[in-house]
């Protein structure tokens, strides 16, 4: 990423922390009045952010087991796609996603809700 478009200068991006602060195949939460956000780091160091609230019964997704680009909810085992926020079949549901940018190992989040549809920018190998 070139200097003049550094995310720090753009108003929408909020600096969160470093990629290493999250364990591989692990998660950390961002505490918020408007509902917690769960940040995930995959095996190949992709970072994703989704609401920490399962579309089923509100389970804390951050506490689930991460595999590939999915997380399994700890309460009743729904599987959610971290890229799209969609629940895997046979379950149906959707959780808001938040765009993530990683610059030099620093994580930035766009917290403006509504942009969540463009979140699936990264390919999950």
């Amino acid at each position: 990423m070139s200097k003049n478009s550094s995310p720090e200068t753009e108003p929408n991006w909020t600096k969160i922390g470093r990629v290493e602060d999250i364990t591989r195949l692990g998660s950390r939460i961002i505490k918020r009045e408007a509902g917690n956000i769960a940040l995930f780091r995959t095996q190949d160091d992709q970072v994703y952010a989704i609401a920490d609230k399962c579309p089923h019964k509100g389970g804390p997704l951050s506490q689930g087991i991460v595999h590939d680009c999915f997380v399994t909810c700890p309460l009743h085992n729904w599987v959610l796609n971290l890229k799209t926020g969609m629940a895997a079949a046979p379950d149906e549901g959707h959780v808001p996603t938040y765009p993530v940018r990683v610059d030099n190992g620093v994580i930035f989040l766009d917290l403006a809700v509504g942009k969540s549809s463009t979140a699936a920018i990264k390919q999950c190998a």
Partner: protein
Amino acid sequence: MKDKLVTREKLVVIGNGMAGIRCLEDLLSAAPELYDITVFGAEPYGNYNRILLSPVLAGEKTIDEIMLNDLNWYFENNITLNKGRTVVEIRRDRKVVIADDGSETPYDVLLIATGSDPVLLPLPGKDLPGVITFRDIHDVDQMLDAAKSGKKNAVVIGGGLLGLEAANGLMKNGMAVSVIHLMDTLMERQMDETSGAMLKASLLERGMTFHMNGRTKQIIGDKKSGVQRVELEDGSTIDADLVVMAVGIRPSIELAQKAGIHCERGIVVDDTMLTYAPGIYAVGECAQHRGQAYGLVAPLFEQAKVCANHLSRRAFASYKGSMTSTKLKVTGIDLFSAGNFAGGEGTEELLLQDEKAGVYKKLILQDNRITGAVLYGDVIDGAWYYQLMRDGSDISDLRRQLLIGQANLGDAGHGGINVAAMSNSAEICGCNGVCKGDIVHAISDKGLFTLDDVRKHTKASSSCGSCTGLVEQILQTVLGGDYSQAPKEKPLCGCTDHPHDRVRRTILEQELKTIPDVMTFLEWRNKNGCASCRPALNYYLLCAWPGDYIDDGQSRFINERAHGNIQKDGTYSVVPRMWGGLTNPKELRAITDVVDKFNVPEIKVTGGQRIDLFGIAKEDLPAVWRDLGKAGMVSGHAYGKALRTVKTCVGSSWCRFGTQDSTGLGVKLEEMTWGTWTPHKYKMAVSGCPRNCAEATIKDLGVVAVDSGYELHVGGNGGVKVRVTDLLCKVDSEDEVLEYAGAFLQLYREQAHYLERTAPWIERVGLPFVKQRIVDDADGRLKLFERFKYSQKFSQNDPWAERANTTTHSAEYTPIKELV
């Protein structure tokens, strides 16, 4: 371990192959202490199953899978193995053998088991790079390397058993393969013209090319780029990047010859496998007995057994020569041949030929007895014919059904051969001479349940493997419902086709030590697996490699990762351990202080005789634990697939009916077992008398004290499907309770599937199996107990203390950022 100080006779074995080591196995089981044993093996490995080199070449097995005795076996049996060492001279005058490094090793008794050498035709070009034979691991490596490095054309000289197995393997590795065969029938020593032609047709169909009646003139190429072409006598040439010569074997006798031991084609031995030289025995392909040298393992194993009988000084067995049968190990081609199949004067022929179905059966009869058989396409009855042949049975009464076969008579419901109809003396495993009766007895007497067990106990199907199906069917008929479940075993999860047991076995056999290693080796379908298999694998690895395996927190369910029970609102509950249900003012005070300090909304006495604190925020967990820890409390693992509680009643210390100190024993049990990880949660209880106030008979392991000792009950379950325990046995002392309880727990840890509690586990494997391992087999029980205690060394660290007092784990419990 044996005591090396005692002087024993020295036994030296030359040749670390199939016959020599089988002889040692037989010797060790009869007389383990008799000799100081030294083995010389020219090859740089332990002992392996040479037969299975063909499946390895064809990619159906790995080298690891064909190892018979690893280096540890030699160590455990106190055998000195000089691997990669060739013996170059036997000095009979001084009774020493001299190895290629100049070392001298003295012997009192010598066993020569040098096998044979592949014949190299004396053709021009035979020494060119790329011209090899097919005998050992090194040869297979060379073939695989050639295929991998993109070499395209292979020529196999020799259309016998070995040649065709090599050709098939090379083809499977993507090479174009031509077979040059001197005769006009393939495997002419085992096949007649018709069956040979059928064999050729099906190999042609697979893409193999043949040059029948082909006489090789020379191999063309140069030292630098290696072989390029093979030229035949008729002037034609075939392109070749690799030439495999498989034209026969020659007993390896030079060493014996040089030492002046009488040899003809092989080293001549008598019926006790003794050579003409006193104190020197020979077994295997290098030996010649009654004019005959053998090239298949079945007779060699018989020789090994006889020789071991004499080495162990029991000295009553004698070897009378063997009849042999042959199968080809090319997957998808079924072929069987035994005895004199060519017929001749005074013989008659029974023939069944169904070209469309690709089936051919020929039996040669003489005086109403079978003297030879060739089967192609349908070989199921081979074992039966072979049996009739060896027994010299009169087949007059069977004549009309003989060719239809035993398999197709009566109940063939198991989709093939009817083993139930076979007599107990029918031979099942030709390689190891194991009869049906041997297998049936082993299964019922020793309580065997799996193919592997049968292999270990009887050796059936452990060599060439072609009788595996039969052995499985015997298991099925003997065990009935118990076994029929096995083939239907469900895969561990959607990421793999492998069932739990196979995964566990593979972890041990392949020494896999990380989750990614397991997934790669067993070709998991999904990257990182899923929330079902990762916790299972993490447990299996933890159980397999105590102290070695590094626990993978990310593969644990949140309760076990965070060491608390997640609640429906995302908060956690905290249950400190209360040993055997006992507590004291200090602990109770610490608990109430924590409740006040962290505003814990609810306290409850659990069904497991301890106290649960509900509704604690995740961030507060480390601080709560720190405060509890100060009062000496540790994690109760109420959240884990782990040891939960040991419930007790008051017992003899207060109760008017109590017969033993049930509370004290419960505390000891809990102290011994806390911290252990198990396939599913594990609960125990101790009641002081049969009134059973601690509900011991619905626990995974329950102890009910009686006047004369302790009853041990196993496999109980409250919960969803209540199951009352089975009585395992009765023991006399507390120490025995601890030993049996530890052994049982370890057996469950090692055998059960992840998320299978003891109740369904015992229903699956059967109480007799558990009794056999824990009650009947004292030695095995001790070993299980030792393994349990060993693994406990690494698991009795309070996870709460670790997390309360360091910052290493803080990421788990704190947000990465707080936004207001």
